[in-house]
């Protein structure tokens, strides 16, 4: 991993992704998608890999779910679950952390499971995609904000005085 300065003088981290795990993640997505849904699935996997190369694994996950609309139109639920495992592997492969990818991967897996169960549960209960989407958005936003606030407190960037500077 190295660091460079952008043209505006901003501090950037240019990460060299761990090549072997990422490669395995790419291959896994193509193979799993192809195995589940045939040639169309393999093509969806290649599209996902391309999106990951261009815009990163997070965007690739979104793109992959877009491809599901076409290739997994009427696929059984278990195939979706297996494909999610492959996409999760792609995400974890790209994660870097000084403490090792383990804790972060666990957090990612737990968060994904929680959000997925929440969205599925609300959808099952209400039958409304809109309600499930709003619930998912609100809960995810609250979790992200809570982590942000905790970080401010942990680093001593907030004071008791609401008008005071950190």
């Amino acid at each position: 991993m190295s660091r460079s300065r952008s043209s505006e003088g901003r501090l950037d981290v240019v990460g060299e992704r761990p090549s072997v795990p990422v490669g395995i993640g790419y291959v896994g997505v193509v193979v799993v998608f192809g195995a589940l849904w045939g040639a169309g699935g393999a093509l969806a996997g290649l599209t996902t890999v391309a999106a990951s190369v261009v815009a990163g694994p997070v965007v690739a996950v979104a793109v992959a779910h877009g491809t599901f609309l076409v290739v997994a139109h009427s696929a059984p639920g278990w195939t979706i679950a297996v494909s999610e495992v492959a996409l999760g592997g792609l995400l974890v492969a790209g994660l870097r952390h000084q403490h090792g990818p383990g804790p972060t991967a666990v957090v990612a897996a737990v968060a994904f499971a929680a959000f997925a169960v929440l969205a599925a549960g609300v959808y099952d209960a209400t039958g409304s995609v809109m309600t499930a989407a709003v619930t998912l958005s609100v809960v995810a936003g609250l979790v992200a904000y809570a982590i942000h606030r905790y970080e401010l407190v942990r680093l001593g960037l907030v004071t008791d005085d609401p008008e005071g500077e950190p």
Partner: protein
Amino acid sequence: MQPTGDLRREAAVAAAVVVIAVVVDRPVLLLGAAGVAAAVVARQYAALRSFAAVDDALTVAVGAGGSNTVVGRATTVPIAVSLGRPVDCAVRVTVDPPVPASPEAEPATIDLPAGTTTAEATLTFAVPVAGRFALPDAAVEIVDSSGRIEETLSRATDTEIDVAARSPRDVHVGAGGRRVAAANGAHASGSRGSGLVPVETRPYVAGDSLANIDWKATARFDSPHVREFEVETELRTVLVVDRRTAMATGPPGETKLDYARDVALGYAARAERQTDPLGLYVVGEGTVTDAVSPTSGSEGYRRIRDALHGLEVRTDGAPSVRPSVDSPVAPFSSSVSLEEGSSAFDRTLRPFFSVNAASTDRVDGDPLVAAVERARIESADDLLTVLMTDDTDRRRVREAVSVARRGSGRVIVLLAPHVLFEPGGLGRIELAYDRYAEFESFRRTLDGLAGVRALEVAPRDRIEAVRRGADE
């Protein structure tokens, strides 16, 4: 925890997926949105741990090298940044110069690439005003390993910079690089009479005053004894200070003239303390610009102090300090006004002022010699002349000294060695030493003259630098 553009894009993608899921009514897309949201949360978690590790382990140490400086001088402050353990994020520490620093001063930026634990840099700045200024807190920018989340912390530098006004540093007055006392303290007159300081008790001889009989000694020795006292005298001193262009050599606030002024103020303080008469003659380009005849009045001391404090090198021949009664400009101005007046008062005083005005006209010869001559004329014979100049025109200095020591005159010559003041004078230490040796030879020549004490006036560190160079 500030998101960068990349993280905002990812969040926008998640939102778009959610919207598409609602529009096409396909709940499977919500899994994609959940995946993106989970990735963002995981990145926040990773960034939180990294930032906390930096916060716990980062120290910013500011060296004390530049904590004392002077106005306008480039000051360098070393800054060391260290992390107790390697982290996987990039850290940049920025320390700004103190608030009053010159605008062109750049902040010190220290980058700690991921995995490294120490880095150093220097902060260079100049402060145009005197005072004590705190170094601002260091700004610590951190970017997480994915480059998507950043945070800014601060670290106290706990450093204050003392900026002193420019003035001579550690004035060295000495001979051959060794420090000596330049001023006279209490001075013995050598003659006896009425006074306060007893000298001896001796047997009475015919002609001694009965008032001087020491009755206790007479009783002790069983024969008449008298006690003698030393007569108290005054040490008449005139300061002849050269303020011509050559005396401007040196950094601002540390020129030859600044050093000469410092020493002259010391003489003035000593004279005032001992109520010795003190005079001042300031030598300008082609003229004696200021003159105060020896005086022991408090007003006279104050005038001399003011004149010395206001001394500066000017080449236009104008007075360097405000005109005083004894200034050559004052009688000239008065005579001009008298020339224009037609009253009986003007007619009566005009001849007197015309004589004085003539005496303060520009001198024909060297103004240094002229100033010494004038001091000799206006003062008594037993005069101590303190001549403060440099060694750029040695022939004239010799001439001035010979004029000053006429009769029973004593002279202290305080010379500022040019080589120790000129910019880059110590660039080549061997050459500087040779030139200093020439100066020293000249000084010794003067010092060898009867009634003359020749001393050097210079920054102590520069004198020592030359001596060290000679030793090496």
